[in-house]
């Protein structure tokens, strides 16, 4: 169990993070940019110092009024947004550098998992962005830390690569049962990976619980909801057909004259339906 209750003032924002994290769980940090997700991870890692409060990991104090463990002593793996691979070291040297107790077998296992056995002697700059990211992940877990922190690690990758990295994280989690905290903007990702979601708004942890909490307090009870843009409004018989752009798909919805009066082309709207109506075709 990780218990966190810390305060920090930083750049005019008062951060207040209070949450309990279950050992061995994968947690998604969810929130708008600037809400304080990265700050939360950095405070946990010891890269920033809280103004007050405590951090307790498995009954060991990491931070309180008297104690402030350095990042070196916190036994964490941190995946940085810019990967932070050491340019002067090859892939395998990057991984070896991460271990204080040498464990070549585990390094081989990691290289296999991230599919870079052949490239072990390449330097980071010779790899693609996605490969670098996988190395960064492998390096972060190479010394089998207690806590794995991922700072917006997947923000700059396409969906195929994203899925690969998500699988890597699941594999690592299965193998090491690491307590993991990952920053994510993607609800699909949250559902795929996380058993717990921590929602941060304006520097404060608002709630924590199953991914379903992301739906709480939404304005309507319709579960089938998308943001859409009105592309076209046409009359058809006694009704109107509204063409909507939802992400990259065009879709049509029937509407009435009274409703059309409140809409115009280009408006951003919310499309919702009761959960009972949509049919799923596999």
């Amino acid at each position, binding site marked *: 169990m990780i218990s966190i209750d810390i305060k920090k003032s930083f750049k005019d924002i008062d951060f207040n993070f209070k949450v309990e994290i279950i050992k061995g769980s994968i947690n998604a940090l969810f929130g708008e940019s600037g809400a304080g997700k990265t700050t939360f991870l950095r405070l946990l*890692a*010891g*890269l920033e110092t809280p103004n007050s409060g405590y951090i307790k990991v498995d009954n060991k104090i990491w931070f309180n009024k008297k104690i402030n463990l*350095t*990042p*070196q*002593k*916190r*036994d*964490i*793996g*941190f995946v*940085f*947004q*810019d990967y*932070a691979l*050491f*340019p*002067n070291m090859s892939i395998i040297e990057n991984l070896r*550098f*991460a271990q*204080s107790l040498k464990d070549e077998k585990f390094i081989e296992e990691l290289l296999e998992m991230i599919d870079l056995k052949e490239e072990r002697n390449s*330097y980071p*700059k010779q790899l693609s962005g996605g490969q670098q990211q996988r190395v960064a992940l492998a*390096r*972060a877990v190479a*010394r089998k830390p207690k806590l794995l922190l991922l700072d917006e690690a997947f923000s700059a990758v396409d969906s195929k690569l994203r899925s690969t990295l998500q699988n890597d994280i699941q594999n690592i989690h299965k193998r090491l049962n690491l307590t993991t905290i990952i920053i994510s903007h993607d609800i699909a990702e949250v559902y795929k990976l996380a058993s717990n979601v921590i929602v941060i708004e304006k520097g404060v942890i608002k709630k924590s619980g199953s991914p379903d909490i992301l739906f709480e307090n939404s304005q309507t009870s319709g579960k089938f909801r998308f943001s859409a843009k009105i592309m076209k409004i046409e009359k058809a018989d006694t009704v109107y057909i509204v063409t909507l752009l939802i992400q990259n798909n065009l879709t049509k919805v029937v509407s009435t004259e009274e409703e059309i009066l409140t809409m115009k082309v280009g408006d951003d709207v919310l499309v919702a339906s009761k959960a009972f109506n949509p049919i799923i075709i596999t």
Partner: protein
Amino acid sequence: MFLETMLLTFKVAFITTLILLIIGVPIALWLSNTKSKIKPIIETIVSMPLVLPPSVIGFYLLIFLGPSSSIGTFVENWFDIRLVLSFEGILIGSILFSFPFMIHPIQSGLQSLPKSLVEASYTLGKTKLQTLFYIQIPNIKNSLLTGIVLTFAHTVGEFGVVLMIGGNIPGETRLASIAIYDEVEALNYDLASQYALTLFAISFVILLFVYTINRKFSGVLR
């Protein structure tokens, strides 16, 4: 005579560079990291030799290190070393005068390294010293080389400070740059041009060597 002067010149340059490298890295590291309020003061002091005429530094060194000063007396009594008109004297002068040429490149090299590299090393359990030797220094080889070359070249070419504090004692404090001046004064143009040409050739070779290596480094790092 000629060989003695040339050897002395490069000896001073070599030792100055070595000492500055050893004390320059920690100072540059501190400057690149610190949020301390005295940072601007230290930076100013480090940069002073860039703007001050060498003779000013030489003058103050004479005053503060001379036989009648307390530092001069102390060092002479305890270590039996004279700090003015001596090899040790010009070494101190060269070190002080070349300070910014070593510190500035290293400091800016350290500052241009992504902060996350150092932080990543810390989160992997590495101490600050391990991080310095395994991560920071290997990734600023270009800057280190620039610092070394600038310091070396600057020391070889130094004139004012050396003349002020060291005088012109053959084999002890007479360096090539002073020798050239001397020979020209004595209308000894042949010897002057011998010094000049040698300095020119050696400097050219060193710089060429450095830039060739530098290109290799960048090949790996970029």
